[in-house]
């Protein structure tokens, strides 16, 4: 039911882990629904210098988390915000229909992490003022 690409990312997830001094953190999902993912980002010169994830969920939840870190790493924040759920699924060679909504949250988690970064930046600027 899963593509080889999905299984590859499930077996060998890229960029798995946490960033203790992350510039932005995004968490989406809920263990009640069976999927919960957190994306950590490190930003330098408006680029996603480092990105890591932690995920509770099924095979596709883990694979999509891993895939988004590959897609986003090195991109500008604006480019990161433009990565969609569909981009993630396509890069994995597709996901089973039933998984498209519930376990394809990685793009949302990345966007949440970037928003979190913007919010923190704004707060820092306001403190400096």
């Amino acid at each position, binding site marked *: 039911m899963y593509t080889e690409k999905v299984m590859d990312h499930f077996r060998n997830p890229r960029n798995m882990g946490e960033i203790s001094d992350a510039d932005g953190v995004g968490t989406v999902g809920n263990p009640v629904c*069976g999927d919960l993912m957190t994306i950590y980002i490190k930003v330098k010169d408006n680029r996603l210098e480092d990105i890591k994830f932690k995920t*509770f969920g*099924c095979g596709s939840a883990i694979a999509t988390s891993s895939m988004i870190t590959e897609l986003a790493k090195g991109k500008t924040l604006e480019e990161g915000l433009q990565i969609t759920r569909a981009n993630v699924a396509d890069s994995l060679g597709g996901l089973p229909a039933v998984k498209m909504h519930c376990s394809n949250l990685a793009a949302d988690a990345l966007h949440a992490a970037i928003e979190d970064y913007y919010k923190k930046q704004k707060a820092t600027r306001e403190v400096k003022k």
Partner: protein
Amino acid sequence: MPNLSKEKRIYMDNAAGKPVDSQAVEAMLPYMKSSYGNPSSLHLFGQEAKRALEEARMKVAELIGAEKKDSVIFTSGATESNNLAIKGIAYRNKDRGTRILTSSVEHMSVVNPCKYLGTKGFETVFLSVDKYGFVDLESLEKELNDKTVLVTIVYANSEIGTIEPVKEISKRVHSKGAILHVDATAACGQIPISVKEEGIDLLTISSNDIYGPKGVGALYVGEGIRLEPLVHGGGQERGLRSGTENLPGIVGFGKAAEIAKRGLPSESKRLTKLRDRFIGGLLKPIPYSFLNGHPTLRLPDNVSVRYSFIEGESMLLSLGMMGVYASSGSACTAKTLEPSHVLLAIGLKHEEAHGSLMFTLGKQTTEEDVDYAISLMPSIVKRLREISPLTPKELPK
């Protein structure tokens, strides 16, 4: 899904489907090739078929301790048997009452007919169960009233293995004049069942669950129990299930019943030993791991466990990569995206139900298979917990 362990192919999902016993396959063949008559025909071919049909009926009756072979009605499987029992009793007795009691740990082929009847003027009460999955006898007594025509309860649950106190349930049901239907799909062939001694009015049995072919089942209908048929036609099966009988399937079912009855005491003992070895091996080395269902009052084939902080499908994929094929109550393995209603009914939180893993053993399962599966779990759980953001401090109290 790739199998990285080329030499291993270990099937541990016997509740979902079983191999057909080779003696049953052999027994079936003549009824496809040479004795292909219709049991309703009066000529030689028909009589040959009729004899085989009645012999199979006798063997199934013997397996469940039924006194008369004519009390066994062949169907297309457990789903049809459950539908026939529930709707057949409800329709036939609607002048007497419209209340049906069932449990909250039933198979969907009981849940959905009951819900369907709810749209047709009947009222269904889903009785609660305790943390092991035992039906609450007090609420059964409380909910039974003059309007109750049918109580339908699973003999043993296929997901968590818990064996219900059928005799106790039967006493209470009959004291109020209601009819008891028991779904013995998972239990039959694994543990001794006697419809007579246990006071069961209707009993559902499935052929494949006792190593017979798929697409065949039976409903035991006790003496004096009247049903409304669901399928009308030529009046086969005492008019309760019209249609030319699936003779090869029924003969295979009969053979499987004969083999199951003979082998039951020793196979039940063997599986129980394997089951307990398996459960111990899955839980002892891994913290935050738990058994679902009762430790001893459970089916010999059922190993249902759960691991905190991780999800069932990802465990199944990991096991599959190593050549072990099992099942999970996680929403992520279901079409509905809801975790198993059985696991929720025994009081598990959604996130706990998601972390469940179910192995069902069979005749082909060896101690070596069990030990191999046990050996895989610690590293699978460790890896998935490393990936997971959940930790013990987030555990619900």
